[in-house]
């Protein structure tokens, strides 16, 4: 049973890590915590639903949904954040809240306030036995996808010119621009990556929840924010560490707390976050250059 709970923890932590990474990539470049990140997930969720309704085969539908998330992120940057390029961090933050609220209302009034059921293929609710414990297909996919996404991102950042430029931009954007690399391309790529991660996380999220609703982005973006802060704002390894830490703590508390204390689970998790920040104010793995906040 302990092994089972560890799998649960890693599976949830992986999703949180993907989410936190999406926030951290954008923050490391533009210094913006994009609170509309959750709505990118919602959008991907609805795109999956629409693709399935139109009869696309499941893998294709997932592809469409993830691309929708990525494109929406780029569009969001183009429409809402680029005009605010030189604005203060506070203005950017408020803009992201505005985009988030706007999209929520559009989803509620344009689609439905009611959650829509997403019929996941039968094999995803299956389970296979491994030794004396059963592993669900869902959590396994979750773990594999998170791991692959993290590796792919790492390769992209290490092995490509754009990736290198992005890492450099996170340390000192002005110098990167002096090297002749267009700022807009770096920023757009950051949003594209964050949208891709949001889309992937949305697929894993929806696979576990079997429905999409207009407000579904709120909890994940909150968790991602917490994970990113614990890990060290703007630090990509930090975001991954923070995501896994948050997932593991949540599952372990859920598994071990006696019923009488269980309702205080979130309070205990957040107290833990405060404790971490007291000891390491810059997070677990601080960013190389700490951004203004």
């Amino acid at each position: 049973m302990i092994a089972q709970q560890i799998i649960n923890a890693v599976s949830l932590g992986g999703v949180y890590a993907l989410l936190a990474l999406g926030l951290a990539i954008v923050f490391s470049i533009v210094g913006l915590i994009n609170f509309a990140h959750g709505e990118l997930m919602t959008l991907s969720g609805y795109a999956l639903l629409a693709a399935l309704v139109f009869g696309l085969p499941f893998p294709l539908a997932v592809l469409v949904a993830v691309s929708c998330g990525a494109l929406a992120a780029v569009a969001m940057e183009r429409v809402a954040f680029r005009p605010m390029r030189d604005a203060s961090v506070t203005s950017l933050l408020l803009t992201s809240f505005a985009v988030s609220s706007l999209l929520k209302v559009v989803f509620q009034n344009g689609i439905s306030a009611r959650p829509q059921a997403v019929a996941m293929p039968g094999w995803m609710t299956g389970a296979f036995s491994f030794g004396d414990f059963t592993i669900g297909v869902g959590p396994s996919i979750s773990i594999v996808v998170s791991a692959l996404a993290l590796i792919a991102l790492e390769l992209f950042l290490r092995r490509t010119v754009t990736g290198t430029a992005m890492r450099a931009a996170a340390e000192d954007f002005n110098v990167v621009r002096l090297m002749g690399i267009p700022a807009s391309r770096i920023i757009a790529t950051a949003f594209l990556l964050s949208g891709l991660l949001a889309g992937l996380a949305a697929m894993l999220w929806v696979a576990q929840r079997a429905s999409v609703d207009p407000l579904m982005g709120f909890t994940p973006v909150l968790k991602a924010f917490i994970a990113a802060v614990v890990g060290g704002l703007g630090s990509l390894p930090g975001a991954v560490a923070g995501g896994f830490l948050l997932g593991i703590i949540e599952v372990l508390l859920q598994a071990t707390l006696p019923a009488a204390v269980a309702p205080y689970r979130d309070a205990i998790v957040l107290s833990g976050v405060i404790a971490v920040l007291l000891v390491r104010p810059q997070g677990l793995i601080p960013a190389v250059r700490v951004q203004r906040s």
Partner: protein
Amino acid sequence: MPTLYCLHRAALYAAVFGIAAVSTARAEEIIIGAATAQTGGLAPYDQPALAGLRMAFDELNAKGGLAGKYTVKLVIKDTRSDTAQTATVAQELIDAGAKIMITPCDADPSISAGQLTQPLGIPTLTLCGSAPVLTAAVGDVMFGTYPADNVQATAVADFAISEGKKKVFLLTSPDSTYTANLPEYFGKVFEKKGGAIAGRGTYTMGQPDFSAEITNIKGLADQPDLIMTAAYEPDFPAFIQQLRGAGVTIPVYGADAIGTPTIKGLGKLVDGVVYTAAGYAEPGSKLEAFNAAFTKYAGHAPESTYEVNGYEIGLILDQAVKTAGSDDPKAVRDAIAGLKDFEGITGKITYAGTDRMPLRPVALMRYEGGEGKHIQTMIPDAADVPAP
């Protein structure tokens, strides 16, 4: 001077007659305030119920209004599914002159609105809030309309016992009265009738991950043969998806909040899930006729029995104003509280002798192959229903 005097007098007459004219117009109109969620988590419940209510008022207004003479002016304001916002909106509606208040499908916002209407004596009806503590928490102006949680839970427990279920796992969430108490009412009846509680678990509403709770269920030495929960959207789909995903096949029973198109849309995943409704449209029944009429009115079929419940609120108010003979809030309140065996659409509705939570039938339903199948309709024995 005389000219001026005349003018004054003319102005005075005009003012007096003007007021008189306005007040006669007002006397024929009754403002009903609806503080309901158009957005947020409660919207999927409030909106269908409100659609039923509007249909009732439209039909009544075509016949002259409540009791044939008080044209209903329904003023709707959005609570955004927020308890504090519900109080704000309720105050605005009171200021707008509401003589009857309609509140959301949940105990907590309904209580917050009730705190404002109670001192003013304005009759207040919740659309489908079903927590039996709701009416006592406010006072004598507050009325439930949907079958109460303890009544629903008793019906489901009676059914589970009749099926031979022995051990239940209760999954609750302390985040709302409904999710916290309904499974516990079930547990009380179930134990009293010979069943046992094999374990308890909790979740936070909106929680992404149920895997730890599910692993706990799998690890129970004494495996339950039933899981009872009042979780609804989006928690219920998440729970059952992850439960079945972990290879657990124990049946899951719930209550009215999972009788929705979203849950039905889960298809095979929810096969065997038992839930409740305010009624079942048997061929030739009044409910079947209502469903047809509603489809014509709204352009789509009712999603659940919340529509008919909303419609019945309109009928209850019409009857109450008739009995009261006026739109005086106090008289209307007394008339609702005295209703006995009122013929609604789903069956007989009685308030007399209750704590303002109505006695009315509960329909037990079960999902099979993506459809809600009717099991039976019953009014549980009052002696079995646990105290709120």
